[in-house]
């Protein structure tokens, strides 16, 4: 089994927490269990998010005010953190906490 490729995108100001990067293609290392968004969030915390973690995460999920779309669909329709990530999924995190 090879590593899992996913496209992670940030918008609405969430990119400010990630060196202003709006798109990142990442390869998740292979592991026994299937990769869920919950695991991805931990991976992001350890590898991409360097500071102000509380602006992005809360508990084992994202903080209220951060919206998540998996392939343009609301993650609330896809079992949120339990969604099993498929190869080449496009996962978008949008902040509603910035401005306005």
């Amino acid at each position, binding site marked *: 089994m090879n590593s899992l490729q996913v496209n992670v995108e940030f*918008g*609405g*100001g969430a990119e*400010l927490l990630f060196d202003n990067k709006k798109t990142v293609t990442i390869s998740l290392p292979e592991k026994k269990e299937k990769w*869920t968004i*919950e695991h991805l969030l931990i991976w992001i915390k350890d590898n991409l998010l360097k500071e102000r973690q509380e*602006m992005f995460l*809360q*508990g*084992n*999920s994202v903080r*209220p*005010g951060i*919206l998540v*779309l998996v392939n*343009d*669909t*609301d993650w*609330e*329709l896809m*079992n*949120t*953190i*339990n969604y099993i990530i498929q190869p080449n999924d496009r996962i*978008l995190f*949008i902040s*509603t*906490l*910035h*401005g*306005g």
Partner: protein
Amino acid sequence: MTCSHHAVPFRMVGKNIWFGLSLRDKKKWDKCNKCKSNVPVIILRHKDVYCKECFLSGAAHKFKAFIGKNHLVKKNDFVLVCFRSGHSSVSLLHMLRSALDLQTPKKLKLRPIVIYIAKATCEPQFLKEIEDVVCSFNFPLYFISFNQYISNGQELDKVLFANFRQMLENYPQINSFKRTNNPTATQTLERIYEQQLLTEVAKHLNCSIVFVPDISLNVATNLLTSISLGRGAYLPLDTGICDTRDPQITIVRPLRHFDDKELAFYNVYNKLKLVVSPNEIKKFNNTSVQDLIDTFVSNLQLNYPATITTVVRTGDKLALDKTVLKSKACNLCKAPLLNNTSEELNSATATDFSRWISAQLQIFKKDESFNEFEIKQRELYCYACSKIIEFVEK
């Protein structure tokens, strides 16, 4: 579908509950609520699911219906649109542009002019982004600095710029806006002055209407804040569908029935570019009544998804006595002064009375009847503003 305990999302509220819904309800999410055929892509209010087409047409319809139903604009009126950082303004401009470009009889007929109020120190790069976004919708754009308006507001010609580079040339380094040592008073003053700025610029540019991009959360927060600060009598003006305290200019909140999720998805699906100011990130420091109520409403909304709509819809039903609008205006907020001429006692009178009676000790005693005292209290400012002014004068 099973949910083991450790994987429960934060919004989970009980056993067999999935985002406030029983697992049985989840089956109803297979099809869009409206067209009953397509696969849904968004869930709103934690219960209604829509496909992309129905969601987008629903949002556009809600916007046009709000403008049409309330008879807000006359044909070809100039409308001043206040631009702010974040999702709401970009959605507002896109909804306006789409409604103006319609080829059907439902086409909206008005002429928008966009204004951006620069508050903190502004990076040229950020202002350039605003210019690019507004120009992409083909609307005229003006820049004004909040500080310059405060120090030199009488001559709008000198502080209103069609080009941000001109504004930056004369950008004052000193902050002329007097901050009080009370964050609640400071935020209230900022809001009052911003509203005055918009009203005056609207007059200057021959607009009769101002659109502000307040969303449902802002309206709910402002409503509860207004009550806490003793502005309850002015709720219809401060938070209602339109603010008519100025006889010539009406301030309208056309996004009052939209929430942040709807607008964020609207922008994603329309592939709209956002302008986000790194300085305007929402703080959760709870030092002012406004911030405290914002946190309170947002937290309540998480577990009780009807919170915001209930508050906003209640606000929609409030109205101000039309005769009151003709009375003298408060020197600060310009809302009509409510002179208590009737025998009826209101809460402001009660507060004034206890203040007057406390001052009846021999050492403070001024020969002043309660009626004289009360009239003096309400001569210049409304009840809430008289409290704010105390901080400014200190």
